[in-house]
């Protein structure tokens, strides 16, 4: 194990021929890719293309039918508990409890990830200052505006300093300015060495990623930096790249 760890030191996510079948339906069909430390990896695809299933496998929620993968150096089939300890996760539904106060939410999730009380306290103060949230600390999360909630949810998902954070359409429904601020937080996280794995359907966001993969019908049809992809598909923006690929889809979106 140590050997593979050393060998893959900078490859935080490795997927090799990952496949997930539900009966006769192949949700994820033989996908392979690698994500490096500190990278922002965009994971694109239409609804029903298999994004969620692939992400669930990487998070240790679903065991691959065949193929293998490692996240943060741990096998996603056999070491799911260790995988879970080393990742953060935020979904489009925000994942915070509306009827808990801001600090209670932080304390809860930090507690779940086994952080020490003292550490939680110090880091909470720090976070409140960075986010300019000092006045909101004792407010119920339900009373905060959407943009605030999202920023808080992201901060909570990386509060325990995971190696990778998985973001599942994190910016759904917010205005472009808040989205911009949100991405600043993401960039900030990468400077701390956290790898970001993000799904989105905003194509302008795809441009912010270091590399982007596009899934069609369970397979990865394209994987490169936004710049190279645009060149390859002879497109002016990522939206056009996506449209060209999505046209090939034979699967019905759900």
């Amino acid at each position, binding site marked *: 194990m140590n050997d593979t760890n050393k060998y893959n030191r900078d490859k935080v996510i490795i997927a090799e021929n990952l496949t997930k079948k539900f009966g006769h339906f192949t949700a994820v069909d033989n996908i392979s890719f690698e994500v490096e430390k500190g990278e922002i990896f965009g994971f694109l695809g239409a609804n029903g293309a298999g994004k969620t299933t692939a992400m669930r496998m990487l998070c240790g929620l679903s065991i691959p039918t065949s193929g293998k993968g490692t996240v943060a150096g741990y096998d996603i089939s056999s070491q799911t508990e260790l995988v879970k300890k080393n990742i953060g996760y935020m979904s489009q539904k925000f994942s915070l409890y509306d009827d*808990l106060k801001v600090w209670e939410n932080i304390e809860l999730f930090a507690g779940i990830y086994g952080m020490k009380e003292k550490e939680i306290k110090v880091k909470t103060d720090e976070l409140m200052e960075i986010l300019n949230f000092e006045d909101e600390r004792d407010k119920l999360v339900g009373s905060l505006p959407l943009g605030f909630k999202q920023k808080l949810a992201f901060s909570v998902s990386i509060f325990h300093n995971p190696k990778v954070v998985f973001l599942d359409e994190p910016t759904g429904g917010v205005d472009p300015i808040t989205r911009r601020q949100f991405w600043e937080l993401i960039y900030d996280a990468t400077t701390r060495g956290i790898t970001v794995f993000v799904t989105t359907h905003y194509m302008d966001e795809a441009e912010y990623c270091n590399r982007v993969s596009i899934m069609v019908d369970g397979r990865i049809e394209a994987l490169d930096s936004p710049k190279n992809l645009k060149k390859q598909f002879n497109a002016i923006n990522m939206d056009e790249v996506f449209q060209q690929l999505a046209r090939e889809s034979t699967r019905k979106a759900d």
Partner: protein
Amino acid sequence: MKQLMSFIRKEFYHILRDRTTIMILLLMPIIQIILFGFALTTEVKDTKVAVLAPTNDEVSTRIIEKINASAYFHVVEKIHNTVEIQKVFRDSKAKLVVVFEDHFSEKLHHTGKAHIQLIADATDPNAATSFTFYASNIIASYQQELMADSKNPYQIIPEVKMLYNPQMVGAFNFVPGVLGMILILICAMMTSIAIVREKEMGTMEILLVSPMKPIYIILSKITPYFVLSCVNFTTTILLSVFVLKVPIVGSLASLILVSLLYIFLSLSVGLLVSTLTDSQQAAMLISGMGFMIPVMMLSGMIFPIENMPVALQWLSNIVPARWYISAVKAIMIEGLGITSVLKEVAIMILMIVVLITISLKKFKIRLE
């Protein structure tokens, strides 16, 4: 352990922040007990009485007069043979039939002993207990008078017979019934709603992705409702003992033991419901329609099981509360020990095992 503690604390925040719900949950048993307790206690006044005195003699006439003179009774009819008793009840002409034995006076004077039968319509068991008690008292006081007048020891033996509800099911039945209902409501309904809410809000996903073990999630969901159930159990028992004067004849320890078992059973019902559905409304409907109403209708709380059609009697066997209520009745009211409710205990344990097995299977499938 710390993981679990911070999670349990969070569950308590959820419940305590929702003021309305917690108030309803805490007050409901109190209100129900008081409501059932006092609404079901019927004032016995002018109860209609029919009399069957084959020999119209001195003593029986005196007793009939005494009964009629009291504020509780009103003699409306004299009947002449036992066949008419059924008819009197069926036509609702009387609630109580007083039957004297043949040659009542003669027997009393010669042998010093005579029998009176008090046949009551016990469809309303509370009322039936009260008025047969009053009637017996009237007869006893007349016996005293006779004794005072002469030196012979006279003995008039009243024999009470309850018709239509011989075991008096329903007398203090509502206390076990309310317990059975409240506990299943809190444990099954509230637990399933609490778990399903996490699914609906999307927070369940986050928890599953976290290193938190699913069993911890379930444990911490269950803990607050377990505590709440214990509080409600205590208030219900205190109220029924001190306000309604329903005594705990059997041992308190067995009562608590059986109740804990039932709480676990209800919690596993809630767990199963939560694995079957994804929305809070569905969870509420399933536990409401699927468990609350059967508890009220089929558990013997309102309608005695013995009087149900066979198909419903059979159906009542799968209602958890039926077994709990029957065990509580045996312990609390009849004063039987834990050994006489082994059947109920065994059935409840069996139900817990089956429910937990199904839930765990379902839970795993969901994770896939």
